[in-house]
C-alpha cells in the first residue's frame, strides 16, 4: 500500500492553501450567520480558477482534475471552514446533468454551473418522504409538448439563492414506487413556484418549495420518463463521493485546543493540563486521521476507476457520528462559556464550538441518515438480509 500523494497533487494542495489564505476572509465566514452557507466572492474566485469544474472531465467542459486533487481541495476547504455548501451542491447537479441531461441542458445550463454564474439545489425530499425518497408524490403530468408539475418539496436548501432545482417527480402513480419517477431540472424563476424559509435550530436556513401548475418543456427532463431512479442513484453516488463532509471536526478541535491552552479555571489551572481533556483531544485527533483514511481511500478507488459504494456510506457515518461527539465533548469542556453564541462579541473564537454543537445533529440526518447508512453497510458489505 502507498499513502503518498503524487508531487503534482501536493503542489495543488499548496496552491489551494495559498488561495484560501488570500481569498477566504473572516467576514465571509461570519456572513453565513444569516443562514445561507455560501460566499459569492469566494465562489466566483474559485470558478475563475476552474475549481468548480474540477472533477468534471475536460471533454465535458470541466477541468478534468483527478479524484486525488478533488479530495485535497475538499479537505483544505473544510479545514479552513470555507462556506462551500452551494459549490458542493452545484458540482453534483452539474455532474448529474452531464450523465443524464439532454443536449439542451448540457449546452445551456452546465457551463453556467461550472463557471459559477448559476447555482443549483436538490429537490428530493418532501413533507411525507425523506429516507424513503422513492415515495415522492410531487406530480408531473404531460400536457401536449409540456409537463405540468404540482406538489411540494421540503428541505430544498439553498433554493432561495439558486437558479435551478433538480426535482424528483412522480410520473406514474400506478406502478411500483421506484418505477414511476422522473427527474426535471426546473428554473426557479418559472411561474408557479413559491419558496418559503424553514428556520432551523442552527444558523442555517432551509426552504419549503411549492409547485403550482409549473409548466416546462420536455427539454428540461433529466433521464428517461419513469427512469428517475437511475438518476437518483447517480445523484447519491456523487453526493456521497464528491460533496465532502469528511472533515467537519478539525475546526472544532482547533477551537478546543485554543480554549484549553488559554482558558483559566477557577483554581488557576488550565484545561490543557487536565489528563481527561488531553485524552479527549487525542481521541478526536485519532478520529480525524480515520476520516482522512476514508477520504483518501474513496478518492484512490475513484482514481483507479473502481466504483465505490458502501465506502461512501461508511465515511459519512463515521465522520458525522464522531463530529457530533466532538462537539458535545468540547462544549462540555468549556463549561458555561461553551453556551455563548456568536451574537456576543466576546464569544470564544466567534462562538465556533457552540455553533458547531447546534449544527452537528443535522449531519447524521441529511444526505442519508446514520440508520440508512448502517442499513447499506449491513446489506451491501456484510450480506445481511434486506429488512425493508
Amino acid at each position: 500500500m502507498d499513502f503518498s500523494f503524487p508531487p503534482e497533487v501536493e503542489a495543488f494542495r499548496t496552491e489551494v492553501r495559498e488561495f484560501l489564505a488570500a481569498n477566504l476572509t473572516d467576514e465571509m465566514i461570519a456572513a453565513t450567520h444569516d443562514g445561507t452557507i455560501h460566499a459569492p466572492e469566494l465562489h466566483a474566485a474559485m470558478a475563475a480558477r476552474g475549481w468548480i469544474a474540477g472533477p468534471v472531465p475536460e471533454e465535458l467542459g470541466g477541468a478534468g482534475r483527478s479524484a486525488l486533487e478533488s479530495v485535497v481541495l475538499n479537505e483544505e476547504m473544510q479545514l479552513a471552514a470555507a462556506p462551500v455548501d452551494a459549490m458542493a451542491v452545484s458540482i453534483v447537479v452539474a455532474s448529474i446533468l452531464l450523465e443524464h441531461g439532454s443536449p439542451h441542458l448540457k449546452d445551456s445550463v452546465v457551463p453556467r454551473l461550472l463557471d459559477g454564474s448559476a447555482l443549483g439545489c436538490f429537490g428530493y425530499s418532501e413533507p411525507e418522504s425523506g429516507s424513503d425518497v422513492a415515495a415522492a408524490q410531487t406530480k408531473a403530468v404531460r400536457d401536449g409538448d409540456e409537463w405540468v408539475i404540482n406538489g411540494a418539496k421540503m428541505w430544498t436548501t439553498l433554493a432561495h439563492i439558486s437558479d435551478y432545482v433538480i426535482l424528483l417527480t412522480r410520473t406514474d402513480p400506478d406502478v411500483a414506487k421506484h418505477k414511476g419517477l422522473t427527474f426535471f431540472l426546473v428554473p426557479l424563476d418559472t411561474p408557479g413556484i413559491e419558496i418559503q424559509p424553514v428556520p432551523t435550530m442552527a444558523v442555517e436556513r432551509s426552504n419549503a418549495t411549492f409547485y403550482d401548475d409549473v409548466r416546462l418543456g420536455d427539454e428540461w427532463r433529466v433521464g428517461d420518463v419513469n427512469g428517475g431512479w437511475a438518476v437518483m442513484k447517480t445523484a447519491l453516488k456523487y453526493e456521497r463521493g464528491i460533496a465532502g463532509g469528511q472533515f467537519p471536526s478539525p475546526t472544532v478541535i482547533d477551537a478546543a485546543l485554543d480554549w484549553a491552552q488559554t482558558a483559566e479555571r477557577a483554581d488557576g489551572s488550565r484545561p490543557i493540563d487536565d489528563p481527561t481533556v488531553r485524552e479527549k483531544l487525542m481521541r478526536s485527533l485519532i478520529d480525524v486521521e480515520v476520516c482522512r483514511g476514508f477520504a483518501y481511500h474513496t478518492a484512490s478507488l475513484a482514481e483507479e476507476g473502481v466504483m465505490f459504494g458502501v465506502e461512501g456510506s461508511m465515511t459519512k457515518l463515521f465522520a458525522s457520528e464522531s463530529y457530533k461527539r466532538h462537539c458535545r465533548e468540547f462544549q462540555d469542556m468549556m463549561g458555561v462559556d461553551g453556551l455563548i453564541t456568536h451574537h456576543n462579541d466576546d464569544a470564544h473564537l466567534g462562538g465556533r464550538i457552540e455553533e458547531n454543537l447546534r449544527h452537528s445533529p443535522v449531519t447524521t440526518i441529511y444526505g442519508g441518515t446514520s440508520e440508512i447508512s448502517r442499513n447499506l453497510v449491513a446489506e451491501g458489505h456484510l450480506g445481511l438480509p434486506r429488512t425493508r
Partner: protein
Amino acid sequence: MRTRLTDDETAVKEVFDGFFANESPIAIVRAAEPQGHDSELWSKLAATGAPGMALPESVGGGGASLRDLAVVVESWGAHLAPVPLVEHAVATRFLHTCGSDIDSLVAGEQIATLALRDSVAGAARLVPAGAVADVVVARAGNDVVRLNEPGPGTGPRNTGDLPIADRELSSAETVGSADEWTRALDEWRALMSVAYCGLGRQALALGVDYVKDRIQFDVPVGTFQAIQHGLADAATKLEGAHLLAHRAVWALDTDQPDASRLAGMALLFGAETARFCTDRSLQYHGGYGFSEEYDIQLYHRRASAWLLQLGEPSLEYARLADDEIGPIGSSGEAA
C-alpha cells in the same frame, strides 16, 4: 496512492492466509492454551522465512518491507496463531540496527522478544513472549540491554492465554540506546494495530455467519435491525482502523515525519475497534458466545489482552498528547 493491497502484497496474503488456515486452525490455538505457544508451529513458520522476512538479504533475511510483513501479521492476527511473530520480528530488526548478533534469530532457530515496558531494578515484568523467548531486549534507563537465556517455558495464567513472563536481566549486556528504542516500540505498535484488524475482521465474520444461521422468532436473528446496525458500526470502524493501521506501517516504512504519531494512534484505534467487534459479535451469539465451545470467546479475550502488554491505555493517550501539545505544565507549547 494505493489504498488497497498491491498485487505483490495480495500474493503474500494468499500464501499466509493459506499457511495459517492449514497450520494454525482454531484447534491448534485451543491446544496451545493456556501457555499460548506452539513450538512446532513456530518451526513451520520459521520454514516459510516469515520471522526474518523483514531483515536484509545480506544477513540471510527476506529483504521484504515492513509493509509486506504487515500483510503476514494481519493474517497471523486473524488466526490468533500461538507464535510470537511480531515480538520476534521487531526485536530482531532492532538488534540488527544496533549491530548485535542475530545469526540464531534470522531463521527463527531462537526466539527473540522485547520488553515493552521499561525494566525496573534489573527485571522486566510480564514480558510479551517472555515465557518462550531465548533473547530478551529491554530498556534499562538510557540503555537498551540484551539477555541471552532460555525462557522459563510458562508464565502466569492470563486473560489472553499469552506467554507473558517476568525476566531477570542481571546478566544482560548493553546493545543500544534509548533513542533507537522508540522506533522499535513504534514498529510493535503499528504491526499490532494491523494484527488487531485481522482479529477484528475474523471476529466480525464469526458474528455475521452466526446471525445468518441462528433462527429465533422464525427468522434468522440477522434479520433484526438492531443486530444489523451493531454489526454495521463494527464493520465501519474496522474499515477505518484498517486504513489507519496500514497508513502507519507505510509511514514507518518510508520514514514519514508523522510515523510515530500514526503508529500510536493506529494501535489505540485498532485495539478499541477490535474490542468493539468482539463485543458485538459475542453479544449477537447470545449465550453460546459465552460458552467455551464457541470460538468468539477466544477472540474476545485476546482483544482485551494484546494492548495491555504495553501498559495502561491512558498512558498511551498521555504520551501522544505530550508529543502533540507538549507535556503537562508547559501551557500547551508543542514539544
